[in-house]
């Protein structure tokens, strides 16, 4: 199966990711340097949580915006390897397309949670180590 060079999100979820980033990053101009999250950080976390929970993400409803270069997103191919080893990717789907689906589903869930609670349920994401 041929792996794509670029993956991304549907336009709607890409917008949701932008919104989420602006919420999670400090919104005031600070004189001192602050740590800022980038899109990759959220994207990778969405994929990791999807894998941890063994999700079966559906196909993307719209065409992906292919915003991210796979080589940059998964520099040491950690995500690829885990998907490969877990053998959770459907046969007719390339691994990175599967990763794209996981990200799309995960970011959507992040966004909905944030809309409902005003914060991400971090304890739920990280405390369950099973």
């Amino acid at each position, binding site marked *: 199966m041929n792996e794509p060079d670029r993956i991304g999100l549907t336009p709607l979820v890409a917008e949701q990711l932008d919104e989420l980033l602006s919420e999670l990053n400090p919104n005031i101009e600070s004189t001192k340097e*602050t*740590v800022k999250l980038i899109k990759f950080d959220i994207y990778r*976390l969405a994929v990791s949580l999807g*894998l941890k929970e063994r999700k079966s993400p559906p196909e993307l409803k719209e065409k992906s915006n292919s915003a991210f270069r796979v080589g940059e997103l998964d520099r040491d191919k950690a995500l690829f390897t885990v998907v490969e080893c877990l053998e959770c990717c459907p046969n007719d789907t390339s691994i990175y397309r599967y990763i794209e689906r996981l990200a799309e589903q995960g970011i959507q869930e992040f966004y909905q949670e944030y809309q409902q609670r005003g914060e991400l349920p*971090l*304890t739920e*994401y*990280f405390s369950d180590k099973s």
Partner: protein
Amino acid sequence: MKLKELVIHNFMPYKGEQTIEFPQHETQNVMLLFGDNMRGKTSFLNSIRWGFYGVALGRHLRLIPRVNLVNSIAAAEGDWSMSIKLLFNHEGREYELRRIVDKKNHVAVPKIDSDFEETIGLKIDGQVIAGDQISNEINQVSPEEISRFFLFDGELLQEYENLLVEQNEQGEKIKEHIEQALGVPALINGRDEFTSLLKDARRTQTRDAKNSSDAKMYAEQQRVNETKQLTLEKDIKDLETQQRDVQKQIDDIEDELKNTEAVQRKKNEIDVLIGKRDTIEDQLAYDADEQRSLFQNAWKDVLFQSVQPLMSTLKSKRDSLLQAAQAKVVLDAKISDLQKSLDSPFCPTCTQPIPKEEMDGITLRIKELKAESELSIVNMDDVTSLNSQIDKLSKITSSNEGQRICELAAKQRRMQVSIIKIETELDEIEQEIQGFDTDLITRQREKKDRLSNQLFKLNSDIKDSKEQLKKLLETQAHISTLISKSSGSKGQASTIRVNLYEGLESLFKQSIDDLRDALRKDVANYASEAFAELTTEKTYSGLEINSNYGLSIIDQTGNVLKERSAGAEQIVALSLIDGLNKTARKTGPIVMDTPLGRLDPKHRSNVLKYLPKMADQVVLLVHEGEIDPTRDLSNFAARIGARYQIKRISATESRIERSN
């Protein structure tokens, strides 16, 4: 004089009629009136003062206008009448003093003192005293000048510390009051009278000297000095007017600041809370930063959790493959050994041929082993692939980012709760001080500082001008002597008068000094006696009085104690009051408002034991912070003749009730 009964009607917070009976017993001579702050203790003191003298004093001894004396609820109901009835006895005679004010008939709502009409009545042993005699009769019993020392506001004790500071304006004022009470003004007035007469006599002498050839030059000098004197006197008068004006402005600001003390305290609380909130907010921002930093690698931590079981599976698979490969090697070695037996069917030890049955067994065994070996064939590419996967997955590491993020989230929640609590508190405080301009308070403080500097400069200018005037007067006296000695002026009426007035003025000056010295000595003796009983530090040898009636503590080495605590100041001030009171009059009651404010328990105990001895009758107006009814009263329970409590009805109404 002994107070018997006080009947208050519509006076300040005391609406309607309220009667208080004073203790008459010789040893049970203390009356206690308990009341929280703002309930009417000082108003009670003022009711007695107003009953006797028709004046009620506020802070800085300012007169309280009548309109503020009438109970505001009664006034709002249209009743502007107010009265005080005092029953007392003095030297075996019974007195009934009644002072009443009411608004004048034609005035709808009174605004100033003259909108009220005051009537006063006095009966002695049932005999009505004529109106013009009443004031005189009261002064016979209890002169108004001394009232400061027996109708005493404890909050003013601090003012007595100013007596120790030379050239202090407030100290000078208090000294004036003290001397007025002690009777010094009689001599001061006499001296001033002769100073004035001497001035006139010298003017006449100078005029006469103009016609004398040998005194003409002195007359001219005297004329110039007189002009200088007038200018200096005018300057001093102007400076003193300015001084009073500036002092009044400072007093007004102090009053204003005193009223806003609670607001200032609240403002400080706000500043502290804002500081706390800012610190927490800084910590929150710092933690949020750390949390985001952890968040960047949190995906690896999550992935690490998924990878762990997978790694175990892969490693186990790889180990199985390697075990199988190892087993195949062993089987192949066995097959090879057996095959050698088939290829050479002789025993290697005895070289005898191996029997056929045994050879058949070996063949069968080789078959079995080959079958087993075939099952153990391992594709080493699979092992390589598993190793590669294991290597890649091993690179996924975790630093427990998720757990740390959770810990930070919990910490954040706690801090956010703290911020909410602080903000609720801030809202409550801001609501409490709503309407107060806290910036104005700061500006007023700055203004007060500026005025204090101005006052200091004025005081210094007045001092310089007075010094110049003193020197000028000495020069004038000297020139006057020269004129008197000149041949043309000797024996003249104006010279005789100058000499006479000089002598009399000098006599009065000396008398004032003598009287002051004698009085100061008395005050110092009485005060030292009181101090010895009041102080807890028994090594102090006594008190020393200065020219202003200020008292210093003398330690065991005979030196003046430099630093005094607030409690010591209060003890010294109480001793001074006792000394002044005993010097000024022989008998009479003492009414003290909040006299124990700054004292520690031991001093308080000493003062409570001593107070009953200060006068025939002692009325203490105290709050429960000063005298704890359960603890402190045991010290002088036997001396309490009556106990009252001021009960709050509303913010503008209180009632005095007798308690047990």
